[in-house]
C-alpha cells in the first residue's frame, strides 16, 4: 500500500496513536527525548490541520470535505467514514492546537513520563476520531477510546483526591455511554447502516409505523433520551455536572487543559452533529427543558464558582457556566428546527454560530486559565486563594497574562468570549426571552468570580511568605500561553476568519 494514497484524515487520526506507540520503544530513562518526541509528534496533526484549514472550501458543493470511506464491518454495514465540515474542522483545530500546548505544559511531569505522553497521544486520537467520524459506530468507538487515557491521566498523575475524581469521571461518562451504545445499535439495526449521512436521509422522516410492535414515536423518544443523556453528561449540562469540578481539579495541569478545552466539547458537538439532525421533532419538543437546564448551568455555575476557595475549582466551575451558553444556543436551535420563518431561522443560525464559536473560545480560555493556575501551583504548591495576595508586585508579567485570560473568560469585548456570547444572546433572545434575561445573572456573577480570583491572587497587601519563592513566568510557559493569547485577541477583533467557515456549515446543517 502506498502511504501517499492514505487519505489525510486517516493520517490525522493515526499519527498520534502511532506516535504514541513509537514512544513506547524509547527507553524510559531518556526522559528529555520522550518529551520532545511527544511534542514533535503532536505538532504533526497541527500541521495537517492547518493544511486542512487552508484547503477547506466553505462554499463548496459537498457538505463534508476530505471525505474517505473504508469498509470495516461489512456485515453490519459499518465503515470507517471520515469527513469534515466547518463545525468539525473548528473542533479539530482546537484539539490539534491544545494537544501540543498541553504536552509542553506537561514537561514538568516527573513520574512515568513515557506512559503519560503515550496516553496523551492516544487521547488525541480518540478525540480527533470523534470529530471526523461520520459513522455512528466509529463515532462511538472513538468516544470510548478517549475516555480511557483520561481516566488514567487523572488516576495516576492527579492530585490528592484522584481516586475519587477519576472513578466519578469514568462512571458518570460510562453511564452515559451505555445508553448511547444501545441507541446507536438501535439506529443501526433499524436503518441497516451506521453511516450518518445515509441515516440522515431517511431516519428523521420516519413517522408512521412500528418496530417490534413499538411505534416509531416511542422508539425515537427512547433513542433521543439516550443520546441526550450521554451528551448532557459530557458537556456537562446541569444537574449532571458534579463530576466536572472533581475531575478538573484533580487532573494534572495538562490533563485539565485538554479536559476543559476539548473533552467537554465532545458533548456539545454530539448535540449539534447527532441529536438535532437525527431528532428534530423530539428536540423541538423538549427544547424548553434543555434551555432551562442551560440557564441553570449558567447561573448556578457562576454562583458556585464565586464561592470557591480553591483557584482550580473556581476555574472548573467557570466551565459549567460557559458551556451553559453553548447549550442555551443549542436549545434555541432545537426549538427553531424546521421553522421556516426567516427571522427565526436567522436567529437560530446566529445562535449556533455563536455556540460553535463559544466552544472554540472556551477551549482557548479554559485551557489558558487552567494552565495559569498550574503555573502558580508549580511554584507555590497550593491553590488556595486566600494563601496568596499582592503577587502582582513580584510577577508583573504573569499578572498581566492572568488578567488578560481572566478578561477573555469574563467575556470582555475585544476578546473572543464576547463575540460568541453576544451571538448566543442575540440568537436566543427572540426565542427564549425570559430565560435569556435570567442568564444575565450568570453573566454578572462571571464578573464576580473572575474579579475575586484576581483580587485574591494579584491584588491586595503582598503576602511576604512568597517573597523570593514565586518566580516570574518562564519561556517554556510563555510558549504555551502566547499562542492562546494571540488567538483570543484575533477572534475578538476579527472573528470572521473563523466564523466564515462555521457560518456556511451552520446555514446548511440546520
Amino acid at each position, binding site marked *: 500500500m502506498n502511504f501517499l494514497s492514505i487519505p489525510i484524515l486517516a493520517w490525522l487520526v493515526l499519527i498520534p496513536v502511532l506516535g504514541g506507540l513509537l514512544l513506547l520503544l524509547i527507553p524510559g530513562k531518556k526522559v528529555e527525548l520522550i518529551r520532545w518526541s511527544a511534542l514533535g509528534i503532536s505538532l504533526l496533526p497541527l500541521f495537517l490541520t492547518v493544511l486542512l484549514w487552508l484547503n477547506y472550501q466553505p462554499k463548496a458543493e459537498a457538505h463534508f470535505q476530505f471525505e474517505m470511506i473504508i469498509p470495516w*464491518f461489512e456485515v453490519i454495514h459499518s465503515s470507517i467514514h471520515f469527513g469534515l465540515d466547518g463545525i468539525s474542522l473548528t473542533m479539530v483545530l482546537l484539539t490539534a492546537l491544545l494537544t501540543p500546548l498541553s504536552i509542553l505544559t506537561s514537561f514538568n511531569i516527573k513520574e512515568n513520563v513515557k506512559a503519560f505522553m503515550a496516553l496523551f497521544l492516544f487521547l488525541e486520537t480518540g478525540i480527533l476520531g470523534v470529530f471526523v467520524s461520520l459513522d455512528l459506530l466509529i463515532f462511538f468507538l472513538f468516544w470510548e477510546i478517549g475516555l480511557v487515557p483520561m481516566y488514567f491521566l487523572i488516576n495516576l498523575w492527579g492530585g490528592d483526591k484522584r481516586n475519587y475524581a477519576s472513578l466519578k469521571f469514568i462512571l458518570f461518562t460510562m453511564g452515559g455511554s451505555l445508553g448511547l451504545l444501545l441507541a446507536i445499535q438501535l439506529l443501526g439495526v433499524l436503518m441497516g447502516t451506521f453511516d450518518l449521512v445515509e441515516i440522515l436521509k431517511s431516519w428523521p422522516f420516519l413517522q408512521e409505523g412500528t418496530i417490534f410492535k413499538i411505534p416509531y414515536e416511542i422508539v425515537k423518544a427512547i433513542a433521543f433520551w439516550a443520546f441526550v443523556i450521554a451528551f448532557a453528561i459530557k458537556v456537562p449540562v446541569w*444537574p449532571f455536572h458534579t463530576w466536572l469540578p472533581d475531575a478538573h481539579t484533580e487532573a494534572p495541569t495538562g490533563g485539565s487543559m485538554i479536559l476543559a478545552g476539548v473533552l467537554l466539547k465532545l458533548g456539545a458537538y454530539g448535540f449539534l452533529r447527532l441529536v438535532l439532525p437525527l431528532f428534530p421533532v423530539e428536540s423541538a419538543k423538549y427544547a424548553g427543558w434543555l434551555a432551562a437546564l442551560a440557564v441553570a448551568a449558567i447561573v448556578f455555575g457562576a454562583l458556585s464558582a*464565586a464561592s470557591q476557595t480553591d483557584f482550580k475549582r473556581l476555574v472548573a466551575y467557570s466551565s459549567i457556566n460557559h458551556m451553559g451558553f453553548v447549550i442555551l444556543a443549542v436549545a434555541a436551535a432545537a426549538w427553531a428546527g424546521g421553522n421556516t420563518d426567516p427571522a427565526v431561522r436567522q436567529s437560530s443560525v446566529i445562535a449556533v454560530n455563536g455556540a460553535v464559536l463559544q466552544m472554540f473560545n472556551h477551549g482557548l480560555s479554559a485551557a489558558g486559565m487552567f494552565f495559569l493556575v498550574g503555573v502558580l501551583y508549580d511554584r507555590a504548591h497550593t491553590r488556595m486563594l486566600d494563601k496568596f495576595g499582592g503577587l502582582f508586585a513580584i510577577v508583573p508579567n504573569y499578572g498581566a497574562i492572568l488578567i488578560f485570560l481572566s478578561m477573555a473568560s469574563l467575556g*470582555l469585548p475585544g476578546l473572543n468570549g464576547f463575540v460568541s456570547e453576544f451571538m448566543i444572546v*442575540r440568537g436566543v433572545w427572540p426565542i427564549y426571552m425570559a430565560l435569556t434575561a435570567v442568564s*444575565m445573572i450568570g*453573566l454578572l456573577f462571571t464578573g464576580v468570580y473572575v474579579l475575586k480570583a484576581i483580587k485574591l491572587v494579584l491584588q491586595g497587601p503582598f503576602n511576604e511568605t512568597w517573597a523570593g519563592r514565586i518566580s516570574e513566568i518562564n519561556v517554556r510557559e510563555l510558549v504555551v500561553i502566547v499562542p492562546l493569547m494571540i488567538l483570543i485577541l484575533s477572534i475578538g477583533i476579527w472573528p470572521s476568519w473563523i466564523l466564515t467557515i462555521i457560518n456556511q456549515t451552520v*446555514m446548511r446543517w440546520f
Partner: protein
Amino acid sequence: MNSILSLNTLIWLIPLPPLVAFAVILLLVNKSNRASHGTALLAAGLSFIGSMIVFFKALSATSLATAPFGSEINWLPTGDTWLKIGVMVDPLTAVMLFFVAWTVLMIFIYSVGYHNFGQPKGDHDRPGLPPHGADVTEHGKSHRVLSIEPMYARFFALISLFAFAMYLLVVSDNLLTLYIGWEIMGLCSYLLIGFWYGKESARKAAIKAFITTRIGDVFILLGLAALYSLTGSLSFKEILTNPAVLETLSTTVSPVLGLSWAGLVGLLLFIGTIGKSAQFPLHVWLPDAMEGPTPVSAMIHAATMVSAGVYMVIRFFPLISAGWHPGDTLNPTMTIMASIGAFTALFAATIAMGQNDVKRVLAYSTISQLGYMIAALGIGAFTAAAFHLMTHAFFKALLFLGSGSVIHGMEHGVLHSGDHIDPQDMRQMGGLRTKMPRTFWSFLAGGLALSGFPLITAGFWSKDEILSGAFLGSHMAVFIMLALAALLTAFYTARQITMVFFGEPRSEAAKHASETKPVMTTPLLILAFFALTAGWVGIPKEFPILGHFSPAWFQTFLGSMVESAHGEEHSLVPLLTSLVVSLGGLTLGWLVNRRFKTAAQMDPMEKSLGFFFKVFQNKYWVDEFYEVVFIRPAGWIAEKISYQLIDQTIIDGALNGIGRLGNGLGRLFRFGFDLPVVNGAGDGLADGTKGLGSLFRRMQNGKIQHYMGLAVLFIVLIAAAVVYFVQI
C-alpha cells in the same frame, strides 16, 4: 470625493494611536519612563490632531446631521447577511470629539507631573503602592521630596488604552462597537482605580466599580440583542435616523410592562447608563473610584467613562423619544429618566455638602451634574443635555486636575513638615490661595463654572438651558428639584473653595504647601479657558440683550439632529432662578464655611445642619444598606445554596446514595444469594459485581503494557459486543 474618502479613513484612524501606544509601552518600552510617556503623549497628540481636523471639517459641512461622514465594513457573518461595523461623524460626534480630545490631551500632559517624572526613586516605594517620597541630600542637608511612581510606564499604557476605548466609542456608527469601547473602558477604570492594587481600599473600589457598572452592562447587552433582533441592524443610521424603523418600534408593544419596543430598548440602554454614569441607585461606585490616581479621576469623571453613559442616551434619544413630540406628555421611559436624573441631581448634591475629602466632594458633584443631563434628556431637552455634557467635561476635568494639584502641593507640605495628615482632607487645608496661585485661579474658574456663576462661566449657560427647558416644558417638579440642586451645588462649591483656599492654613502641611510644576498647571490654565468660554457657543437667541449678538451655534448645530424642542416662547423665571441659586448658594457657602478656623473644631456645617449633616456625611447609608440587602445574601446564596446545598448535598448526595445502594445490592446478592445458593459456581459472577473499583485498583501498577492492553481490550470488547448484538 477624494477628500471625503481620506476624511473617512482619518476617522477610522483617530482611536488607533492610543491603542498602539498601549501595546508599544506594554511590550517594548516599559523599562524607560521617558519613552513610555513620550509614546503616550505622541499618541494622544495624534488623536487630538485627527479629532480637530475632523471637527473643523464637520463644522463646515452642510447638512451633517442627515449626511454624516463615515464608512462601514463587514465584521460578523450572520447567515446570509453580515453585521457591519463602521465609523461616523455627525454633529453630536463632532462635539464629543472636540471635548474628549482636549480633555484627554490635557490629562495626559498633567499626568507626567502628577506621577513625579524627574523625581528620584523612593527607597521604600514598591509597585502597587503610592510613592512615599525619597530622601535627598542637598548642600549637606537631607530632606524628603516626592518620589516617582514605581509603575510609571504601566500608568501611561493603561491610560492610553482608556483613551482608545473612549475614541472608539465616540466614532462608532453602531451600538456594537460603542459597547466594545464602553466595556474596555470598564476594564481600564477597574485597572486604574485599582492601580495601587496593594491598598485594600483600592482593590475594593476597583471591584465595586467593575461589578456595579456591569449590572448596567448586562442590561445593555439585552437591549443590544433586542434591537438587533427587531431591526436586523445595530447601525445608528439605519435605526435612529430611519423614521420607518422608529415608527415600527414605537408602535409595537413589548412583553414588558406594556412598554413599546422602543421604550423597552431605551430603558434597557438607560439602565446601562445608570451604571456607567453613576445615577441613583447605582451611583455608589463613583465616589470610591477616587482611590485611583487623580488623572484617572479626571478621565473617569470628565473625558471618558461617565460622559460615555450620558453620550449613549443622548445618541439614542431618537429611539427613547420615538413617537413623542415636544409638548406631549412624556413617555414612560422618558419619565423614568427625568425622575432618576432629577432625584440624583438633588440627592448627590446633599451628600456633597457633607464630605471633607477634596476629591469626594467633586465625585458627588459629578453624580449630581450627570443627573442634570439625564433629567434634561428625560424632559426632551436634547441640546441642553449635550451642551451640559460638554461644558461639564471641561470644568470637571479642570476641577479634578486642580484638586490633584492641591493634593500634590499638600503632599509636598506633608513631606516637608513631617506632619502626618491626610493630604486630601479639606479640614487640614486653608489659605492655599497664596501658596498655589495658578492652581487657585484655575480651580476658582472651574468652581464658578460648576456653580453656574452668571455670564462669564460655561456652566451657567448650559445649566440655564436645562432649567429653562424644564420650565418651558412645564415639568415643574423637575424644575424645582434641579433649581434646588443648583443652589446646593453653589453652596458646596463655595464651601470647598473656602476651606481649601481661603482663611489661614489649618495644618503644618498646608503652611508648607507649594505650587506644582508648570507641566501640571499649564493644562489647568487651558482647561480654565474652556471652563469659562465654552458656554458662549450656546447663548440662546432669546436671552436678554446678549442673545441678539449670539448665533446660538450649539443649538443650531446639534438641534439639526432632532425635532426642535421649544420655539419662540421665553420666560425670565428660569433665568432669574439661575441667578438667585447660583449667587445665593455661593454667598451662603462662603458665609458659613469661612468660620472654619482650626482642623479640630466642629464643622460649621454640622452646627447648622445637625442630624442631616450626619446623614449626608454617611451618604444616606446606601453602601451599608446594599451590603446587608444584596452583597451578603448573594454571597450566602452562592456558597450555601448553589454550592453546598445543591451540588454537594443534593446531587452528590444522591450519587453517593446510588453508589451505596449498588454496593448494598452487591453485598446482598453475594451473601444472601450467591454464597449460600450458587456457592462455588457463583464466585466468578461475584468477582464481576465487585465492580470497577477492584479492577481499577489492580490496574494501577504503573505498567504501561497493562494500560495499553486495557485500552485495546475495551475496544475489542465493545466491537465484539456490537457484532454479537447485531447478528442475533
